[in-house]
Structures are given as structure tokens and as C-alpha cells.
């Protein structure tokens, strides 16, 4: 399989990787770059566990080809904390027990951050619809929504 070289920026760092042209970005990130915080739950865009941002836009990395990432900026869960300082969403997910098994958590955090970045004061309904592309089977979403609400409030205060 002929591979191609892809040059990207991932979580602020310049990263090059080589991949076959039909490989998904999800597989490239996990198997070639070692970013296994990006999870595969379905591979068909239905569960959101592989959520990342691509040039600032929230996408499922399972529905992007690795080659498409050439020259573009990616952020993953691994780039969410600021050094040792957790993002308010990360902190609140822990404090509100918004995770049980935790497999969906990276995707939820990336999607929730994308929401709060564009809407600092979402209603419960807006939160629920914005996170509808992320499946969680453990929590019934209750504590997830509460953690996002608490984060939004905290982030508005800090502004």
C-alpha cells in the first residue's frame, strides 16, 4: 500500500506522519501518532467517541481521511488541558461524576468544548442537542449535562 506523507499541526505541535491514502484520520491519530485518547466506538460517525476539531471545526475523525489532514490544524482530547491545569470541563466531569466507564468521555469533552466556545450560556436543551452526536451508555447523560452547565457557569465567571 503506497503511503503518503501528511504534515499537520496537532495540539499545537508540528506532526508528520505517513499513511495509506484510504486510512481514516482516526486510525492515523491512534496507530501512527499514538493519540489513543481518540476512541473508536463505531467507525461510522454515529457515536462521537472519536471527536476532534479540524481547523477549529468539530468532526468525527473516523469520517475524515488521514490525507485530508495535510496542512491543517487538529486538536484532540490530549490537547485540552493547559499543561497541568485541567480545562474546567475536565475538572467538572470528574467532580460531577459525569463519567462511569469513561470511553465516551474524550469525545464528550471535545464536543462540549466546541459548544461552549461558540455559546457561553447554552440552555439545557441546547446542551442536549449539541451533545446528541456523542453516545454514552453508562450515565443516562444526567451528570454529563450538569457538568457542562457547571463548566459554562464557571467559565462565564472567569471571563
Amino acid at each position: 500500500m503506497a503511503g503518503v506523507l501528511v504534515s499537520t499541526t496537532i495540539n499545537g505541535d508540528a506532526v508528520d506522519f505517513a499513511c495509506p491514502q484510504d486510512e481514516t484520520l482516526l486510525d492515523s491519530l491512534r496507530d501512527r501518532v499514538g493519540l489513543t485518547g481518540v476512541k473508536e466506538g463505531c467507525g461510522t460517525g454515529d457515536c462521537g467517541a472519536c471527536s476532534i476539531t479540524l481547523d477549529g471545526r468539530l468532526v468525527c475523525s473516523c469520517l475524515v481521511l488521514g490525507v485530508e489532514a495535510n496542512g491543517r490544524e487538529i486538536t484532540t482530547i490530549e490537547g485540552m488541558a493547559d499543561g497541568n491545569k485541567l480545562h474546567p470541563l475536565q475538572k467538572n466531569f470528574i467532580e460531577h461524576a459525569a463519567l462511569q466507564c469513561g470511553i465516551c468521555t474524550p469525545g464528550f469533552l471535545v464536543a462540549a468544548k466546541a459548544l461552549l466556545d461558540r455559546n457561553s450560556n447554552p440552555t439545557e436543551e441546547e446542551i442536549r442537542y449539541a451533545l446528541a452526536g456523542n453516545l454514552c451508555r453508562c450515565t443516562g447523560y444526567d451528570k454529563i449535562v450538569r457538568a457542562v452547565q457547571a463548566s459554562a457557569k464557571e467559565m462565564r465567571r472567569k471571563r
Partner: protein
Amino acid sequence: MGHDTSYTDQEFKVVGTRVNRPDGIDKVTGRARYGADAYAPGQLVGLFLRSPHAHARIKKIDTSRAEKLKGVKAVVTSADLPDLTDGNRGLLDILENCMARDRALYDGHAVAAVAAIDRQTAKRALKLIKVTYQVLPHVTDVDEAMKPDAPIVQEYVATDGLPSNVSQVNQFGHGDVDKGFAEADVIVEKSYKTEQTHQGYIEPHACLASVSPDGSGELWVTTQGHFGFRINCAQLLGMDMAKLKVTASEIGGGFGGKTHVWVEPVALALSRKANRPVKVVMDRDEVFKATGPTCSTSVDIKIGAKKDGTITAASAVLRYQNGAFPAIWGMLGAMTSFACYDLKNVKSVGYDVLCNRPKVAAYRAPSAPMAAFGVESTMDLVAEKIGMNPVDFRIKNAAKEGTLASYGPTYGPIGIGPTLEAVKNHPHMRARLGKNQGRGMACGFWFNFGGQTCTDLNIGLDGSVTLTVGTVDVGGSRASLCLIAAEELGIPYEQVKANVADTASLGHNDMTEGSRGTFSSGMATIFAARDAIEVMRSRAADMWEIPLDDVIWEDGQAKAVGKKHGNLPTLSLKEIAAKSPNTGGPIAGHNEVVADNAGVSFASHICDVEVDPETGATKVIRYTVVQDAGKAIHPDYVEGQFQGGAAQGIGWALNEEYIYGDDGRLQNAGFLDYRIPVCSDLPFIDTKILEIPNPTHPYGVRGVGETSIVPPLAAIGNAVSNAVGVRMDHIPMSPPRILKALEEQNS
């Protein structure tokens, strides 16, 4: 052994507080490693070839072209997995499910597997394997499978000497139901069906297997029980158990589905053949087609009562579809069906039935939700007929301490009555309802169980505590176990770190199933900590040079008592630990226990729905869970279990189902058309934790993980009935089914 498991009422210092979980940071930063997150030098990619037929004889498998493909390192069929089960049919069933032998028994049944240098090569290799099938008649519906002329799924299963799909029939109950029904003023008899659902954990099955030429091996795997996986894999592959080290990864949900081996023995076989590590990660469609969902069912319920609300008799016939291999699910349905009630005359008959569908696995309180759907729907119908409030009707008949359970034993102190009283008094019950809205409630039961457990507790030189358990943490149990260790030792929660050990590092532990994780490892942790305290008392006595009897342990420190040395300063755990090299070496506690009596569990749920009468769409607008936890060690994660189970039940009630075509193939093997609830489908789920201590746990803990999935099917059915007046007897109550029922009612 020898520890007293009896409940003692005590004031807790840290148990019951809402601390941050120890694995939280790893899980919010992407650092936690799950089944698919392990890599080994030279690892190969393992992929499976699966049957496209529901039932077919495998006449020939030609793997020669695949083997010749460059980059392919091993191809495995059933020929590479000889029968080493020594007449143990149950074990042979496990092997046959992992890899079809002479017949493919369901759509998606594995028939071959390859290991290759990359995914692309492995995929090409699968296409080069030629399987010659002779398609056989199939059956996927439980009622059809019981007919005399149905295709036979397993030739070794017989009823009265004739080939049959009924693998067992079990009857439970007591009294005389005929007599009881004769005494009834009102009798309601109704049949119900429920469709097959999947646990739907977000993490697909995944493992990394590595077998050496010397016969030793390692398996990294997402599982609810790595010790059980070791037993199964070692037995099926003829390996020594001690030579197979199984490490449980972080687990991305299980709910019962990860209590069985599916791909793991084959991954080991591929690795053994290739002499390289092999990683297998299932695709989502494989998870749906070829791992264990729960049963589809068909049940008949009959309940008779006097006008004053006393139930005089209750009976159930329950037919549970087990997939292609015999199991016990109908039996469990029969055991759980009437467990909530105090009945003089009761009879439940459970049939276990084979179909050409995947082997059924446990799904959270397995078998109980379907039986409860029938029973709790019928309970509402009886209440209506005698003109009694459904909650009062249930309270009048609720089981209590001393009730002879319908499945056999006599209950100790139990929580069904208190949950019903809590429901009756809950503000939710008095909230106003709008147009097309309705309220329903229902009860649920689960046994809970304990089992074999083994735990180590080691105290470091600095006084920090390593708790080593063998039960997989599926939903935050490490936090609860650290709380328990801290409570016993009298130290801060942060001073304890819990780890899940691999199979080479600790004695056998049963799976995390049956709501046993926190219950049984918690009990072993209490006893291991008490062991360690005994060691520390003796070290303190040595340090003070006083008799052991003059040393007590209090608030995390040793205190000298008695006239002679009452003024000695106390010794903290840290101080004793620091001196341990000179007082006898490392300080540790250990416990092996068969933690029985996990304390039966009851829940009552309230649900409000709104039904769109023009489309049949149902929206859950309010939901309340009331459940007895015995003692909530970490209330956040107890609530989480209540909410998660309720959400799964809501999905099952409304939209989730396996849809098979006439060809016996599964049509919706993905998260797009197998519709688990999304965030916008659900309201906040209110919870109320009751604490009725389990008399056989030192803290009064009961298992809490499973019961919450039992009531929702019926609670929603009852709510729909109250909203738009149609009684739904088929789960899921999908929009087309509700609309059809509404139209039939109107015409």
C-alpha cells in the same frame, strides 16, 4: 475466612462522601488505556470472516489463497481449535461460538480468522478465503422455534427424547394457583412480547494476544472478569492457567456483555500460529451480530385478585430466546417474575429456547426486565379493574421480611415496601400533567450476588496504601473501595490508591457481574484492612514494648491503653509504617472470601411521557428512580447506576430492537439504526437512594448496579396507557407500533 460479615450500625467518616474518583484525570485527559489502546512490538492485525447465513452447513473452507498472500502470517479455522473440552458440552459451546465448527449457527458466526501485517492486507486475505456453505432452514422467532416442525438449532438438545429447540423448562412457585384463581374476584390474563436488545457499550471488544513458543502467553483485554477469561482461554487452548497472564484493560462498558469470551481464544490461537502478538478489535457491526445481546421473549401473565386488592394467585409462562446455545435466561425470568410480591399461590414456568441468533449474554439484571414488563403491566390492569390506585395495590401486596419469595427462599429485611411508600409520597406523583401526557410506575427486583474475591492491601514506608483488587472497575468502584479502605484504616481517602491486578498478581476473583464489584471487593477490602490493622497493632506493641492487648486502633492510629502506659503518645499509621523495616518488615493485609448474601435489591420507578397521537412518538418528560442501596458508599456512583440503568430501560422500552429479515440476517447492526437514547432524548433522571442495611455486610451494602433497568419497560408502558389510552403489549413501543395501536383503538 473467619471474619464476621454481620452488619453493625456505625458512624462513617469517609464512606458516603462524594470524593473524586482516582482514575478521573486519566479518563478526562485521554490517558486511560482501554482494550484497543495497547501495542506490542511486531503486532499483527487480526480480522474475522463471518457467516452471511443464519444457518448453514460448512462443507469446506479453502484458506490456501489467503495463506499465500504476502503479509499474511496466520489463518485460523476450527481445525486450529481442536475440541479439548473432554465432554464438557458447556465449554464446547463456548468454543463453537468463538469459531463455527461444522455449521454456522447465526448471521455473523465466525468461520475463520486471519492475522496479517496490517488491516488492508488482513481485509484482502479474508476475501481470498473460500467457504462452501449449504444453507439450512433457520428460525429466529422464539414462538416459531417452539413449534414442532421448526428447524433444529442444536442437534444435541432434546425434549422427551425428540430433537427440540427447548433446552430446559424450569418451574418455580408455591401454593395452589388453580385454587387461588378460583377465589379471585377479578382475573387479568395477557400476553406480551419483547424484542432483543444489546448492551450497547461504546467500547467494542478488543484484545492484544501474545503466545510464546514455550506455551506461555499474555492477553490484554477489555473484560468484566479477566480471571474467568483466563480459565476459558486456557481450557480451550490447552494452556496452563498459570502460564497465561491476563490483564484487564480499562473497560468501556460491559453491562454483562463482557462476561463471556468472544474473540479472545481465537486471537490467542492466531498469535500461537503466527508466533507474533495479534491485536483484534471488533467493528461495531461485529459487536451487534456476534456478541451476546439479551433475549427476545414471549410471556403470558395471569393475575387474580379480590376486590379489596389482595392477590389470590399469579402465574406466568415465559419463553426466552437464548440464541444458538443453551443458557438459563428463561429460568431467571421465571425466578424474578413475581419476586416483588407476597403471594400465597404463585407459579412461573420458564422455557429456554434456541434460535439462529447470537449466543445471548447477560444484560444488567438479565431476564428480569422482560418478565417485569408483563407482570407490572398486568398489575396496572388488575388495579384498574378493581378500581384501586396502582401504587396502593402494589403496597398492599408487596413482599416484606418473612415473605416466601416466589423463587424459593424467605426474605430478610427488604426494600420493596419502602420504595413504594417513597413513590407514593414523592412530589413527582402530584405534579400536573398536560395534554397527551401520562404517568406510570413500576417495580423491579434483582438478586445481587457476591462470589469469590481476593484482595491485597499493602502499606508503603510513607504510610500510603496500595489496595490491590481483582474485580474489574466498570463504573467507579475503585473510588468506593478506596473509601472503604480509608474508613477502616482511619486515614484520608487520598492516602489510598486502588489498582486492578492482573491474573498473575492476585488469587482468583469472579467477574464484575451481578452487582458484585463494590459489594464483594468491598467486603474483602474491609477484612484485608482489618488484617493490616492487626499487624500494625502488633508493631506498635513491639515499638512500645508493651503487651498487644494494651494496644487499640482508633482514628488511624495505635493507642496504648491501661494504667501503666496510658500516657504514651499515639502512633499514627505513617509512623508505624516508617519503622516497619525494623519491626518485622512490610505491613500488609490480605483477604480471600466467598462473599455471599449480596442482599436482594428492589426499585420503584415513576415516569411521565408525552405521546404524539399523530405520529406515535413518545417522549419521556420526567423520570424518578427510587431504589434501596443498603448503604451508598459513593452516592454519586450509586445515582449514576440508577440513572444509567433507567436510561437503558427507556431505550429498550421505546426504540431499541434487533431487526431480522426473512433471510435471518440482522438488518440494523450499527448505532444508526439500533437506536440507543441520545442526550436530547432524555430528561434529567431524578434519584432517591434508600438505605435499608443488608444484614450480611459489615456496612450494610447491597449491590446497586442492575435493578434500575428492570422497571422502565413497564413504567413507560403504564405511562403510555395513561397518556393515550392504549395498552402496549410489544416492546419496543416504537412509533409505528403505538400509532397502529391508536388506530385500532379508534376504529
